[in-house]
C-alpha cells in the first residue's frame, strides 16, 4: 500500500500539541480560547487559483491539527479533540463565526465515521491522522453511470486475487476527485442480483496504476467533480473495511451527533448570507417593494427555523441523549433554502443578476448567479430530494415501501 509513502509531511502522524485539559476549563473559557486561536491563526482570504487554494486549505488543516484544534468529535488517539457534545456545539459556533476554510474532500464527513466505527486498529492508525491533518484528500466512489438513486445496483467489481482485490469499473460525480489521494468506494464482490448484500467497502489509492480520473465539466462551467475509471487496479485486501459483502450497512455511518452540531454551522452561515442579501436589497433601494419584502420574510422565517431546528435537535441530544424528529428534516430544509435564496437574489437583481463575474457591471462578483447554478446540485448529490422524502415517509412516518421496488 502506497498511502504511507505519500504522507511525508513533517509531523503528520505525530500527536497534536496538547490543548489545556478540557475538564477544568469552563465553557466560556473554552469558547474564548477557540476564538483567540481562530483569530490569531486565520489564514486570510482564499487564493483564486484552484491549486493554490488546495495548498492553502491543507496548510490551515495542518495548523488546526498540529495545535490540537481538529476533529471536535474524534477520538483523541487519532488527533481529535474528543469533546463532549455541548462543546462540539460551541466549536461549530466559533468555526462559523471565524469564517475559516472547511474540510477538503468528503473523507472527514463521510468516510471517517465509518473508519472510526468499523475500521481495524491498524486501519485507524494508518488513515485517520493524515486525513484529519489534510495531508491526504479523500473522495467518495459510490455513484456510477447506472447506479444513482438505485445505488445497490452498482457494477464496479472487485475480484479477490490472493491478498489483493482487482477492481474494474467506473464511478461518476466524484467530487474533489482531481485532488484526491484516496477513494473510499463501494464495489461489487457478490453477484449483481445480490444487490446490497454483495457490496464491499474498499479504500483505493487514487495514484495506483489503472486509476484514471477524468474531470467532468459541471453546469457552472467548473470542474468540481469527475469520472473515475478503474482498470485492473490492485488493492490490498487489508484496505477492506468490514467484511466482504458487508459494506452496505457501513456506508451511511455517522459519528455520534456531530451532524447535528454541523447543522448549526450551516444555519449560522446562511443567516449571514441572508443578511448580506438584505443589505444588497437596501443598498439598491428595493426594500420598499412589498413583493421583495414578502420574499425576504419567507427567507427570514426559513433561515431562523433552520437554526431553531438545529438548536432543538441539540437540546434533545443534551437533555435526552438522542436526536428527535427535527434532525431528519434539516438537510431537506437547508437544500431548498439555498436554492431559493440564490434564485430570489438574481430575480431581484433583474438583468444585472445574469452577468458573469468578469463583466464590469456584475453585482458582487456574480456570487448570486454562481450560487443559483451551483445549488442545482444541492437536491441531487448525497441522495436526491425525492429519495430523501421517501426516506422520511418510510422511516419516520412508517409509510409502506413501494412493493414494485426491490426491498431496502
Amino acid at each position: 500500500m502506497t498511502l504511507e509513502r505519500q504522507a511525508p509531511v513533517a509531523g503528520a502522524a505525530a500527536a497534536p500539541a496538547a490543548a489545556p485539559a478540557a475538564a477544568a476549563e469552563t465553557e466560556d473559557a473554552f469558547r474564548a480560547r477557540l476564538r483567540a486561536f481562530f483569530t490569531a491563526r486565520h489564514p486570510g482570504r482564499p487564493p483564486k487559483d484552484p491549486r493554490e487554494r488546495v495548498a492553502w486549505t491543507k496548510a490551515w488543516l495542518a495548523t488546526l491539527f498540529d495545535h490540537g484544534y481538529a476533529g471536535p468529535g474524534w477520538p483523541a488517539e487519532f488527533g481529535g479533540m474528543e469533546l463532549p457534545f455541548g462543546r462540539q456545539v460551541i466549536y461549530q459556533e466559533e468555526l462559523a463565526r471565524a469564517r475559516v476554510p472547511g474540510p477538503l474532500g468528503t473523507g472527514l464527513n463521510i468516510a471517517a465515521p465509518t473508519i472510526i466505527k468499523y475500521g481495524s486498529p491498524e486501519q485507524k492508525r494508518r488513515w485517520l491522522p493524515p486525513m484529519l491533518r489534510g495531508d491526504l484528500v479523500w473522495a467518495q466512489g459510490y455513484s456510477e453511470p447506472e447506479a444513482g438513486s438505485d445505488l445497490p445496483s452498482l457494477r464496479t467489481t472487485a475480484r479477490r486475487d490472493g491478498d489483493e482485490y482487482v477492481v474494474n469499473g467506473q464511478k461518476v460525480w466524484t467530487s474533489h476527485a482531481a485532488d484526491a489521494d484516496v477513494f473510499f468506494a463501494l464495489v461489487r464482490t457478490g453477484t449483481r442480483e445480490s444487490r446490497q448484500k454483495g457490496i464491499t467497502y474498499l479504500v483505493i489509492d487514487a495514484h495506483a496504476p489503472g486509476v484514471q480520473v477524468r474531470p467532468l465539466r459541471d453546469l457552472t462551467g467548473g470542474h468540481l467533480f469527475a469520472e473515475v475509471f478503474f482498470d485492473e487496479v490492485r488493492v490490498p485486501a487489508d484496505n477492506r473495511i468490514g467484511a466482504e459483502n458487508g459494506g452496505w450497512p457501513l456506508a451511511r455511518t455517522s459519528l455520534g451527533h456531530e451532524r447535528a452540531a454541523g447543522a448549526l454551522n450551516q444555519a449560522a452561515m446562511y443567516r449571514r448570507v441572508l443578511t448580506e442579501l438584505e443589505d444588497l436589497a437596501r443598498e439598491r433601494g428595493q426594500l420598499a417593494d412589498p413583493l421583495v419584502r414578502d420574499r425576504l420574510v419567507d427567507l427570514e422565517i426559513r433561515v431562523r427555523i433552520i437554526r431553531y431546528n438545529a438548536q432543538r435537535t441539540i437540546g434533545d441530544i443534551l437533555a435526552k441523549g438522542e436526536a428527535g424528529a427535527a434532525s431528519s428534516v434539516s438537510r431537506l430544509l437547508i437544500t431548498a433554502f439555498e436554492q431559493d435564496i440564490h434564485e430570489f437574489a438574481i430575480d431581484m437583481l433583474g438583468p444585472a443578476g445574469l452577468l458573469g463575474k468578469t463583466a464590469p457591471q456584475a453585482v458582487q462578483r456574480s456570487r448570486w448567479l454562481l450560487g443559483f447554478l451551483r445549488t442545482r446540485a444541492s437536491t441531487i448529490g448525497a441522495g436526491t430530494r425525492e429519495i430523501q422524502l421517501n426516506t422520511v415517509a418510510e422511516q419516520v412516518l412508517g409509510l409502506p415501501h413501494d412493493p414494485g421496488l426491490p426491498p431496502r
Partner: protein
Amino acid sequence: MSVGYSQEHDELREVVREFLRQRSPSPQVRRLIEAELGRDDEVWAMLTGQLGLSGIAVPAQYGGAGYGPVELGIVLEEMGRALLVAPYFSTVVLAGQALAASGDEAAMARWLPGIADGSLTAALAVAEDSGSWDLADVTAAAEPAGDGWTVSGGKLYVVDGHTADLLLVVARTAGGHGVFAVAGDDPGVERARLDALDLTRPLASVTLRDARAVRVGGGRDTAAWLSEVTDRVLAALAAEQLGGAARCLELSVEYAKVREQFGRPIGSFQAIKHKCAILFLEVESGRSAVSQATAAIAADEPDASLAAALAYVHCSAAFTHAAKECIQIHGGIGYTWEHDAHLYLRRAKSSELFLGPPARQRARLAALAGI
C-alpha cells in the same frame, strides 16, 4: 439556548392528551357542534377544576399554577389536536393573558381567580367591522360616568363573545385608548353568535350601548400592553395550530397505510409519500418555531415578539396546508361532512385569518425582523 421540553413537560402533554382523548373525542366535538354549544359543562368543570388547566398561566397569588407560555403552549397544542370545543382560548389565552399583563392589581384580584378555577369565562373584544387589531382602527368609545365608565360601539369577531361572563372591550377615550371590563349580561350589551367558518370556535358580534364598564390597566400604556398580549396570543395560537397540523398529518398517514387502490396501500405511492413527508417538514419546523417562541416569551428575550410572529406565520400556513392535504389524501371520504378533515380546515383557515390577512402578518414580521 433553552429550547427543548423537560420530562415534566412531556408528562403534562401526556395528561392533557389522555384527558382529551377520553373526554373530547370526535363524537363529542360533533355533538357540541350540532347543538351549537360552546362547551360541555362537565368537561369544562373537570378541565378547569381537577386538571387545573385554566389556571396554568395564572400567577399563584391569584389562584393559578403560575406557569408560563411554554406550559400554556403545550396545553393549547393538545387542544388544537383534539379540536376541543370550550371557551379556553377566549378565557384563558385572550382575556386571561390580557388581565395578567395589565399591571392592575384590583382587576387581577377580582377576575383572575375566577378564570383560574373555571367559574368565570371571559372574552377580549378588539376588532370591529374591519377585522383589524390595530388600535387606530378602533372606533368604540368609552366615557366617564360617575365613578366608572360607559362604553358604546360595535365589536365583531369576538371569540365566545355571545356567552362570556366578562367582556374586556378595547375603546377610545378622550385621553387615548383603554381596556374596559363589561359584564356579559349588562343591559347595554347585545350580542349574537355569527354564522362563520369555524364550527368549533364560535365568533360573536357584541354591540354596546352605554354599557356600564370598569377601566382595566389604566396605569399601562394600552398599545404596549396589547402588543405584549399579542405576542402571547400569537405564540399560544401557533401552538394550537401546530397541534392541528400534526393531527392532520397523523390522520393522513394512518389512512394512507390502510387505504388500498391498484392492489396496494396508497401510502406506497411516491406522490402520497412526498405529500406526507413535506407536511412532516412543516410540522417539525413549526414545533421548533413554537418552542422557540414560547421559551423566548417566558425568558423575556429581546426577540420574543419576532419569535412569536414567526411561529404564528409559519404555523398558520402549515396548518392550512396540512388540512387541505388531509382532505386530498382522503379523497372522496375527506370531502364528506362525517369526516373530521373539514373541521380542521375550518379551524386552520379561521386561525390563519384571526388577526387579519396573512400578507399583513408577514409585513408585520418583516418590520420586526428589521427588513
